[in-house]
């Protein structure tokens, strides 16, 4: 049973998180030991994929320099980018494989660890069937690795259950864009943002989660563009909003349908565009009929005239863009929410031309590239469908196997954890995923993990999930392996390796290929480098929607990024989609989709009267495995606090800094209050990057969107009460004692 072999305290003592405060050799070291080289590559934290130059000396990353020639960010970086280099040469870095023993984790030889992993996978499959083993991937993996992992799961392991942590991130948007447009990508390059006249940002904390996009928005305002922000919180970009819509958590769809109602009522739709390039308008127009302003206002808590003004501003201009992110997508109607945005943009004919379009803001490092080439449960490379017979035949040919050998679609990420909990799945091989922190209902996840008969983890740090593992394979950081990434814009970029993995740690792709060989499928995994994988990926994606055939490392370097689809080496790439008004659907038209309002899966009531919404802070990334180890970032926002409006705080006798127990139908956690007027009084907010007793995901629930299967992180029902300061738990230890250096 996959339970941590030692106490959390002991494991933290051994593996961290410890805080790294200084570069290798200390702050002054560079003066006497300057860098040997500057490597132009990218930040590993978030889907913006900013260009950055890493300073390298003797196979260590000792600092950074802005990369001002990279067109997306032109040298700009957020604090995570600035301190990105501190994850390297970290005292917590796993340097060799580890295997669990009675006494704790013991170092193992690679052969032993890999042989054991392969043996356990095959034993469990022999006993319980092929699909008793599941694979978890992640959207911070390079595109090559995510391609490799999809092939590895289906061919080498032979399971249908592979999914990835992008299931917690981009799938609502992806599902909606595929339904409407037949393609899962931002419809615009970011250079369109400053050119638009009305910019509508809904459910996107851009200042903190996509910081560089702020500059694009401010430049839009410099050009006298108008900014509308819809969010339950005044996020940092709201400071310059021309119109702020304080939408109640989970009610975005009603806001969007209310806006479309106004467009229909006032006959503001673009009839010619609708007639020539779309299907399904009449049904959608009819479906918003009952969403008049007072209905929409009552559901959303946004004033009727503000909803009307937003609709008018979007309609009564030549160019408008609507941007959305997890706020909209992390709901049990996440797909419908995105469709609500798309319906508005299609109705207005603001698609497929400069300064126009709906767009999603991809969150994870390779959130775009990682969801294109087959690590999703229902997907084959090139954004092909695993259920499409032609796609199956094509990929089976590329892989040199019989089509019948390709499994059918398996479970999504949360469904895999549910099946582990239910005993249906017995083994898990996980890379680039920390489900114990990032999946909802963390106590359920912990229970599920402890029921596994085998857990194999590839990671560079001992994540909270890896503590449950039978085998931890020491993998590689972003800067240690070559690969492609794809940014939020759809720009394919080149992660140039700066250093090699330290100690006995290995490149992730090498580990997976080694395992494939041990599982008896070495013939299909002849790869000796990421370049070999890319060559196969190019062919596998050829003719698919996400066509990478024309993309090589050299072209990406030369063009500073290539926008896919890029079907040939001569093709320039496709920064803006649909310029020819042709969509990637069967009939070439954009498809309006009817949306239906329904309440959240965890409704507020008398016992749980307050909405809980969760999200990110600028100084942390995802489950914090990397960023909770970087001292400067942790100091910036040291612990999760619960944001509460003063009106509610007064009602409960809570003052800023008081300890507050936040309870939901799952669990209760205690955090300090941050009393601010920048959140709706009926809502509290907690960032989710922390583990253990302060993990926001102990509170969230496992309701999924029926189509995208994304969890509803943005809407839970909770109650709060003031409490005394708790005893510090194991996660509250002052990790700094063991860290490197001082401030």
């Amino acid at each position, binding site marked *: 049973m996959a339970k941590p072999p030692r106490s959390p305290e002991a494991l933290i003592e051994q593996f961290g998180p410890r805080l790294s405060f200084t*570069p290798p050799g200390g*702050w002054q070291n560079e003066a006497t030991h300057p860098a040997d080289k500057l490597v132009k590559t990218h930040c590993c934290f978030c889907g913006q994929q900013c260009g950055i130059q890493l300073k390298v000396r003797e196979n260590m990353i000792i600092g950074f320099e802005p990369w001002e020639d990279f067109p997306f960010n032109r040298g700009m970086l*957020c604090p995570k980018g600035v301190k990105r280099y501190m994850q390297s040469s970290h005292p917590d870095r796993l340097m060799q494989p580890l295997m669990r023993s009675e006494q704790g984790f013991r170092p193992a030889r690679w052969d032993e660890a890999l042989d054991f992993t392969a043996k356990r996978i095959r034993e469990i499959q022999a006993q319980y069937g092929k699909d008793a083993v599941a694979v978890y991937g992640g959207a911070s993996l390079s595109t090559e690795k995510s391609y490799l992992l999809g092939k590895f799961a289906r061919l080498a392991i032979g399971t249908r259950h592979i999914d990835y942590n992008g299931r917690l991130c981009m799938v609502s948007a992806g599902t909606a864009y595929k339904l409407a447009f037949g393609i899962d990508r931002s419809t615009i390059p970011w250079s369109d943002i400053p050119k638009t006249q009305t910019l509508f940002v809904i459910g996107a904390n851009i*200042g903190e989660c996509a910081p560089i996009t702020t500059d694009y928005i401010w430049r839009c305002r410099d050009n006298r563009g108008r900014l509308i922000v819809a969010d339950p919180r005044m*996020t940092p970009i709201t*400071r310059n909003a021309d119109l702020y819509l304080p939408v109640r958590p989970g009610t975005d769809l009603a806001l969007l349908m209310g806006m479309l109602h106004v467009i229909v009522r006032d006959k503001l739709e673009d009839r010619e565009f609708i007639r020539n390039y779309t299907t399904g308008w009449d049904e959608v127009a009819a479906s918003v009929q009952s969403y008049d302003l007072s209905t929409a206002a009552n559901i959303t808590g946004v004033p009727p005239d503000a909803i009307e003004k937003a609709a008018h501003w979007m309609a009564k201009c030549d160019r408008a863009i609507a941007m959305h992110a997890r706020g909209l997508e992390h709901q049990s109607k996440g797909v419908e929410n995105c469709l609500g945005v798309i319906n508005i943009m299609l109705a207005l004919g603001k698609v497929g031309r400069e300064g126009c379009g709906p767009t999603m803001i991809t969150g994870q490092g390779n959130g775009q590239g990682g969801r294109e080439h087959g690590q999703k449960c229902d997907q084959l490379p090139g954004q092909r469908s695993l259920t499409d017979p032609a796609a199956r035949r094509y990929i089976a040919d590329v892989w040199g196997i019989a089509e019948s050998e390709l499994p059918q679609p398996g479970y999504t990420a949360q469904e895999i954890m549910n099946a582990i909990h239910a005993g249906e799945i017995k083994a898990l091989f996980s890379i680039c995923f920390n489900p114990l922190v990032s999946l909802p209902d963390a106590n359920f996840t912990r229970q599920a993990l402890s029921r596994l008969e085998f857990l194999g983890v590839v990671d560079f740090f001992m994540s909270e999930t890896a503590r449950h593992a039978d085998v931890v394979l020491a993998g590689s950081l972003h800067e240690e392996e070559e690969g492609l990434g794809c940014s939020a814009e759809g720009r394919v970029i080149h992660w140039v390796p700066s250093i090699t993995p330290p100690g006995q740690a290995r490149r992730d792709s090498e580990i997976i290929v080694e395992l494939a060989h041990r599982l008896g499928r070495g013939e299909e995994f002849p790869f000796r480098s990421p370049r070999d994988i890319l060559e196969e990926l190019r062919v596998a994606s050829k003719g698919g929607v996400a066509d990478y055939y024309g993309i090589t490392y050299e072209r990406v370097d030369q063009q500073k990024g290539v926008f896919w689809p890029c079907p040939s080496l001569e093709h320039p790439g496709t920064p803006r989609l649909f310029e020819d008004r042709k969509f990637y659907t069967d009939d070439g038209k954009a498809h309006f989709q009817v949306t239906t309002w329904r309440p959240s899966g965890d409704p507020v009531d008398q016992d749980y009267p307050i909405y809980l919404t969760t999200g990110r802070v600028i100084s942390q990334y995802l489950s914090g495995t990397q960023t909770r180890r970087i001292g400067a970032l942790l100091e910036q926002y040291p612990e999760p606090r619960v944001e509460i409006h003063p009106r509610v705080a007064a009602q409960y006798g809570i003052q800023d800094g008081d300890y507050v127990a936040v309870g939901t139908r799952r669990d209760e956690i205690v955090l300090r209050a941050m009393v601010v007027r920048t959140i709706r009084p009926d809502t509290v907010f907690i960032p989710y990057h922390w583990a253990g007793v302060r993990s926001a995901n102990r509170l969230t629930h496992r309701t999924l969107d029926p189509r995208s299967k994304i969890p509803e992180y943005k809407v839970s029902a909770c109650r709060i009460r003031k409490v005394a300061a708790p005893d510090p738990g194991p996660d509250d230890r002052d990790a700094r004692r063991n860290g490197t250096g001082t401030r």
Partner: protein
Amino acid sequence: MFGYEFYIDPSRCIGCRACLQACEECETHRGKSMINFDFLDRPSTINTVAMVCMHCDEPTCAEVCPADAIKKGEDGVVHSSLKPRCIACNNCVLACPFGIPKMMQDEQQMMKCDMCYDRTSIGRRPMCATVCPSQALAYIPPEEAAKRPTKPIQVFRFGNQIITTKVAMMIPEAFDSVSIDVADYMWEGNGSHDS
């Protein structure tokens, strides 16, 4: 950098602190950030401001220095105190109307933003303005700054002290200068007292 000027535009600041983190990565003072950053009043607002040295034409810090340790270059950049001269008396720290100089206790020396002299003197942009994701700190040609909906001011009134600066603060278009003293906004007659 020829033709480039430094602008601070608090209306663009998103409070990310990339400037603060990047400043301490500068080679001449690695590990020490010279940026001053604050939430204005977090309970009520998300507004934040990041400040670099304003590089005054007549620097108060230099004027009050008893050791003549603070020098302004011909290019208008006001430097950290000269280590051999600085007596760590804190006069500059107390006197600067913008609150910029920092006393480094370990070194017993005042250090401050020198507009990344090591970078700007060789044609590069200052670190903070290079990384700033919102370009609230911007090192740009004046023509570019003129396109913004805010306007630059370089005159500040602190009571009877009028300070002109090299660095510009971007403020709403309706204002010409910034004063924090109510008296500066009052009509006190034309000087003759008819009672």
